[in-house]
């Protein structure tokens, strides 16, 4: 449905997008995730035809974006970053303007309008000036604008930025309700947003895709990512020898040692739960475990690791499906 191949974009001499490729199938909700300046907005702007790519091939709904931009634009709804609106217009005039520009036929404009007004919940503000609306309502108007022509593809650049928590949930619910009928791409730097709404996540950093896969399996992007903190009673000098031969340990550090307590930090290979083995070994050696804590990396950690250079973790592009349990 959306086919992007080796997309590159330069602003002058500055490279914003450094050759990314991806493929989005109908009905997917894809989250573009990345720090500010990673190239998310640029990528979305190219998909919507606002910017032209420096090089690369883009095919959307079987149309080439260079040859048939108008056909593609007809089928995409777009909510740009920071939700620009004509503030001097009132909501109804604005939506009428968009509907006419979208080329919606006169006889169905009314029904489309009333549909969208209902779906986005903007009935109460129709005759208000956009400049007087609250941020949440402005966002709804922005989303109405993007959906008024019932597009196949909906592209939203940071749809919840600047909203309060209640409004964020409302907008997310709105997006979720659309999931059956539309292909949705949204960008964000808020990680929980991706977890809450997207099926798939594409993490971008410095113009490159660093990870691409299902949201539920995102923590597998980074290997060696589970940590176990173990507190043992008493000061034990040779802990490293006692535990280090357990299968699945990739790293073992003694964090803290005093006469009353020994604290270990064990890093395991991903997907391996070491708690039982550690417990058994401790029992074998007659050691008393006071505490065992397993830390699964949050999305935040994965994101940080993938998008920060100084973190030594292997952060190369990983395809989940091909990963074997090592």
């Amino acid at each position, binding site marked *: 449905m959306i086919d992007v191949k080796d997309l590159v974009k330069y602003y002058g001499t500055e490279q914003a997008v450094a050759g990314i490729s991806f493929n989005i199938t109908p009905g997917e909700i894809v989250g573009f995730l990345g720090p500010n300046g990673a190239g998310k907005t640029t990528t979305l702007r190219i998909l919507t035809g606002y910017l032209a790519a420096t090089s690369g091939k883009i095919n959307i709904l079987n149309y080439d974006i260079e040859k048939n931009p108008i056909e593609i634009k007809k089928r995409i709804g777009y909510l740009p970053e920071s939700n*620009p609106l004509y503030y001097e217009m009132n909501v109804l005039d604005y939506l009428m303007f968009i509907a006419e520009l979208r080329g919606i036929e006169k006889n169905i404009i009314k029904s489309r309008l009333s549909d969208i007004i209902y779906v986005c919940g903007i009935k109460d503000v129709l005759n208000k000036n956009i400049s007087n609306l609250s941020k949440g309502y402005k966002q709804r108007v922005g989303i109405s604008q993007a959906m008024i022509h019932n597009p196949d593809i909906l592209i939203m650049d940071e749809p919840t930025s600047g909203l309060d928590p209640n409004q964020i949930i409302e907008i997310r619910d709105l997006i979720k309700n659309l999931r059956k009928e539309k292909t949705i791409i949204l960008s964000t730097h808020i990680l929980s947003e991706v977890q809450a709404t997207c099926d798939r996540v594409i993490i971008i950093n410095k113009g490159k895709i660093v990870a691409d896969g299902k949201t539920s399996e995102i923590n597998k992007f980074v290997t060696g990512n589970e940590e176990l903190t173990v507190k043992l009673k008493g000061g034990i000098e040779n802990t490293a020898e006692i535990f280090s031969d357990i299968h699945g340990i990739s790293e073992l550090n003694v964090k803290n040692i005093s006469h009353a307590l020994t604290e270990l930090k064990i890093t395991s290979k991903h997907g391996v739960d070491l708690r039982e083995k550690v417990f058994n070994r401790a029992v074998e050696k007659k050691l008393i475990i006071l505490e065992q804590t397993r830390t699964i990396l949050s999305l935040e950690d994965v994101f940080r690791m993938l998008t920060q250079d100084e973190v030594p973790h292997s952060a190369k592009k990983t395809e989940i499906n091909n990963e074997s349990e090592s």
Partner: protein
Amino acid sequence: MNQNLESKINFNNIWVIFKREMKTFFDSPMAYIVLVTFLMITGWFFSSTIFLINQATIDGYLDILPLVFIFFVPAITMRLFSEEYKSGTIEIIATMPVTDNEIIMGKYLAGFGIMAISILLTLFYPICLLFVSKPHIGTIIGSYLGLLFIAMFYISIGVFASSITKNQIIAFLISFIICFFFFIAGKIIGILPGFLVSVLEYIGIDSHFNNITKGLINSRDIIYYFSASAFFYILTLRMINIRK
């Protein structure tokens, strides 16, 4: 990007954009401040020549109008693109299924429409003259046609200037400077070396405007106004494309 030149023009899109620009202009109080100022200034130039030389003529008044336009046109056109850049709405309009040509044309025609309305409002002055004397009707019609041509040209400059920057003040100044150049070009030929004279005389609006106010409508002048406007129109199109 060539598709913009090749693809058919959808007049409905131009109309929708034109309509919004006109509505935005006339919905804002600024419109009326600008219009009233324009009418006051033109009215003053009109009446002062009449009472000074005590003749029912619009000649002096017509000479001064292109100068007034130099201030007035940039004030109307400066927001056409600059404001969209500044507020980001250009991203909305540029991702609609409309071509760059349609966007520019809609905005251009809106600018021209506002100018045309302003110019027609000033028809009030020559009509006043009809009550006190017998001015030459042909001259009035020719002059007003000439004014519309100048407006058409200046608006294309203004639209271009507005497409360069998101700063309306800068847009105003750039179009002011370019308009001023074309205004002054025909007036300074007396102090220039010979080889420049014919060039500047052709480039400047003066000679073309003078012909029309004399009642001479020839193709040479009409071609001048249209090609000059087209030149800046194409520059605008290039500018919009470069921004991509």
